């Protein structure tokens, strides 16, 4: 089972790194945000996996909160882009 976890973790990490590549490359702000969005989704999944690995149900809550915050973050940025300051 551990091997399975390692593989999953590895894939997530790889996805994260690839997405981060776009984040740093840009070129426009929305591009970075798209990358950020993807990264936060990957991290949400990662948090859920941590709960699995440590067998701690409570970590699932963290994933849920993280999902909400990620969502709010993107919407805020989007509205901000639309409105100026």
């Amino acid at each position, binding site marked *: 089972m551990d091997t399975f976890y390692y593989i999953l973790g590895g894939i997530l990490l790889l996805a994260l790194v690839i997405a981060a590549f776009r984040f740093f490359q840009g070129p426009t702000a929305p591009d970075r945000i798209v990358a950020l969005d993807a990264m936060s989704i990957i991290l949400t999944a990662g948090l859920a996996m941590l709960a699995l690995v440590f067998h*701690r149900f409570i*970590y699932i809550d963290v994933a849920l909160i993280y999902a909400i915050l990620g969502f709010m973050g993107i919407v805020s940025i989007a509205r901000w882009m639309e409105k100026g300051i």
Partner: protein
Amino acid sequence: MIYYIASIAVMLIGLYAVLVKKNLIKIVIGLSLMDAGTHLLLVAIGFIKGGTAPIFSEPGLTADAMVDPVPQALVLTAIVIGLAVTAVALALVIRIYAQHKTLDIRKISSLKW
């Protein structure tokens, strides 16, 4: 160790922004980064290898398998405080902007004598 260094680095980057950036908002971000670095540092201090969250939510968990809860509690407090200060700072920036129509800190030094 690398965590300490990374946290300190985050702090110093924030401080660098405070010292060098001209845009008020960037300076505020710099201050938040300083805070964030300190918070990271606190968490790093409390971290124990193999330790889990200090919550006895499931049977069988023992104290010696847990990370230090104190820094987490402190960070929780410190984050909220930092957030509050940032909010006030942003409010001040808004006022400054409304009055001076600029965010360049160099142009905001009418108080002298």
